[in-house]
């Protein structure tokens, strides 16, 4: 059982407290916590990706870097515009920005947590030695991380991968299942990427609208403060707040969902590529064997190699199939959960908003 109960933000770096509770005997203690940085998570992910043994598995996508750019920029703009706003307006905007900051924070914690939880629930990956070190090693991991070779190794691998994409899409697929999967995943990936981008834009617009309401409410209120009618709230600032909440919940449930699965599908695609490369290797080894037979040179070697390739390919295919099937199930479940939660939140917020607005109308009418 893994969770991240605590996280600190120090300037640009976020320090996560990774807390583990376990009954597994390969750990030293039943319960322990370690501090980890984002880079440690990346290191763990990369080592897993580069482990040959796991070639047939979908490695859970690495959590994205914590990005406080947006609220930070807004906070900066707010500071610049402070002189032109009333105190109330400034205070409300600041509150909203702090809430946004907090939301980004929560998001990043969640995404890092999910990464670890996926690993711990995987029958194979949960037993990975590096994973154990990550959870348990109470010293700073940066020493291990700074292994330059690993960094470069990963970098090159990525480059090679994109070259493979071209190669692989040309290969004839022998297995119906994989053929379908490939078609599906490639198509789905581009669609989900598009949806993620559109959802992001939508959420951003929504936030702008919410902020506008906050400005408007504050200005109206300062206007009415001078009025003899002493109406306190023409348009309740609460409305702006609710709208902001709607936008941020929408982001959490919808945009984040799409984002996550976009990355997950990329991981699934990676699996396909690895398998396809294994297939290519196998086919090459076959050709090599034929050549060797023709030349009657190194036949045994070639044969061994060919067998290895076949084995690898079969292993990958087998585990790949399992992974992809469970992936689909996982995806469907996640979508269902998030869509339900999003709808419920939208309804809740709309009801809140309505009662807020209605009580305001009552107040205005009775005056």
């Amino acid at each position, binding site marked *: 059982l893994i969770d991240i109960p605590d996280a600190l933000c120090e300037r640009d770096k976020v320090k996560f407290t990774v807390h583990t509770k376990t009954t597994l005997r390969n750990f030293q203690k039943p319960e322990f916590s370690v501090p980890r940085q984002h880079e440690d998570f990346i290191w763990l992910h990369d080592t897993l990706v580069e482990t040959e043994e796991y070639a047939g598995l979908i490695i859970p996508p690495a959590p994205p870097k914590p990005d406080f750019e947006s609220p930070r920029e807004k906070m900066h703009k707010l500071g610049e515009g402070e002189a*032109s706003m009333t105190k109330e307006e400034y205070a409300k905007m600041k509150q909203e920005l702090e809430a946004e900051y907090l939301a980004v924070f929560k998001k990043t914690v969640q995404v890092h947590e999910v990464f670890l939880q996926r690993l711990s629930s995987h029958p194979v990956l949960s037993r990975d030695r590096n994973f154990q070190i990550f959870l348990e090693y109470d010293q700073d991991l940066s020493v291990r991380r700074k292994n330059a070779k690993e960094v470069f190794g990963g970098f090159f691998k990525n480059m090679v991968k994109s070259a493979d994409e071209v190669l692989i899409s040309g290969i004839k697929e022998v297995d119906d299942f994989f053929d379908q999967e490939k078609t*599906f995943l490639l*198509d*789905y990936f581009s*669609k*989900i990427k*598009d*949806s993620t981008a*559109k*959802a992001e*834009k*939508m959420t*951003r*617009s*929504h936030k*702008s*609208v919410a902020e*506008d*309401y906050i*400005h*408007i409410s504050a*200005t*109206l209120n*300062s*206007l009415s403060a*001078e*009025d*003899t*009618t002493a*109406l306190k709230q*023409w*348009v309740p600032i609460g*409305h702006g707040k609710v709208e902001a909440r709607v936008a941020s919940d929408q982001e959490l449930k919808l945009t984040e969902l799409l984002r996550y699965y976009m990355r997950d599908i990329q991981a699934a695609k990676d699996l396909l590529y690895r398998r396809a490369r294994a297939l290519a290797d196998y086919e090459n080894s076959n050709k090599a064997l034929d050549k060797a037979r023709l030349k009657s040179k190194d036949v045994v070697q070639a044969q061994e190699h060919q067998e290895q390739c076949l084995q690898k390919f079969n292993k990958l295919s087998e585990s790949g199939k399992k992974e992809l099937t469970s992936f*689909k199930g996982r*995806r*469907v479940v996640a*979508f*269902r959960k998030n*869509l*339900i939660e999003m*709808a*419920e939140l*939208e*309804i809740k917020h*709309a*009801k809140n*908003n*309505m009662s807020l*607005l*209605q009580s*305001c*109308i009552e107040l*205005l*009418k009775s*005056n």
Partner: protein
Amino acid sequence: MAAERDPPPAGSVGHADLREVEDGEDLFVSTASTLESSPSSPEPASLPVEDVGPSSNGPKPAEILLDDDQEDLFAEATEEVSLDSPEREPILSDGPSPAITPVTPTALIAPRAEPNVIMVSGMFEQSLDELEEEAAGDSFDIQISVSDPEKVGDGMNAYMAYKVTTKTSLTVFSRNDFSVKRRFSDFLGLHSKLASKYMHIGYIVPPAPEKSIVGMTKVKVGKEDLSSTEFVEKRRSALERYLMRTVKHPVLLQDPDVLQFLESSEWFEEKQQQFENLDQQLRKLHGSVEALVCHRKELSVNTASFARSAAMLGNSEDHTALSRALSQLAEVEEKIDQLHQEQAYADFYLFSELLGDYVRLITAVKAVFENRMKTWSKWQDAQLMLQKKREAESKLQFTNKPDKLQQAKDEIKEWEAKVQQGERDFEQISKTIRKEVGRFEKQRVNDFKVAIIKYLESLVQTQQQLIKYWEAFLPEAKAIA
């Protein structure tokens, strides 16, 4: 007694003389004021002061000094009766205010003969009371300060605006503490009005500080050197003394021009300021609402685009239930997009346009206030003209030109009429503006209220629709298996 009546020092001569000229009623008033303005007032004697303090509503030290002096007189008279010699010493040693003329005390002493025998403090209260009664029931209390010189405008059209603050408990004013902004030419204008009203019947109107072209030009040009600051400070101080002297004159104090100079612009200035603020706020609000409309339109576009994308995703999805749910999501988002569009219309027509209208209306309000200032200027100009004509007439008195004299007299009549008209016009426009502003404010508040209620209702409708859509979607999401 005579020994105490030393000739008053040069500085107070004017006042003393002035006092003698006035009728008996003013005598008491003038005495008090004389003492008040006397710069070298020593501390009141210990014995009488404490008694007087609380009972007479805390008269100022100057007033106490008056009583001090009176008490001096009485003390002398009652010396044999009640006071000890030692007590008497400090009282006497204070010395009378030099400005008391022989006339005043005599007049006071006579009726006081009997009360002499009573306790000193009792005499104090009585004398003060009588004074207060004579001074038309007002405790004679007014303090004027001229402060905060502020440069207004630029270049040769610039001028210094001074803040004239009046603190008073006099009943002739409607408030106790108020201030207005006046420029130097306003002070000059006040003086010339007072001069033309009162000098020719013998009142000595305190002169205004002198103009100084050199000094003022330096300030206008913006020279921030020591001589400019000194000049401004000298002028400020001179203006303050001028005003104090003017209001110390009981007749001048009652003059409507003086009152208006000090105060009556208050309401209008306040209102002008209010409208200025309102203007700013409304413009800001208008800007925010326009931003809202813009962002809402953006939101609508982005929602529509997301809806399309979600539909395509749904098509791509191979899990049937999820596929259907995603398509439904796309539909919901499309409907929401419609909602946003409608809401944007409401934002615009209910809200934004209203604000734009009011920004323009306020321009009209400001113009009306400007017109009032113009009317005022016209009136002032007429008064100046009248004065000129009067001066011209008095000059002609000594020349032997009877027809020119007649012409001058005619012109005076003409301008007197114009001045009257100007005054009437100004009063009229001021009255009208007060009414109109009241009406405008009521209208504005009402307009806003109505518009905002409508707007909020539109928002409520949107929320209701949202609830409907999402509630319809929920089972679809739950149906994913």
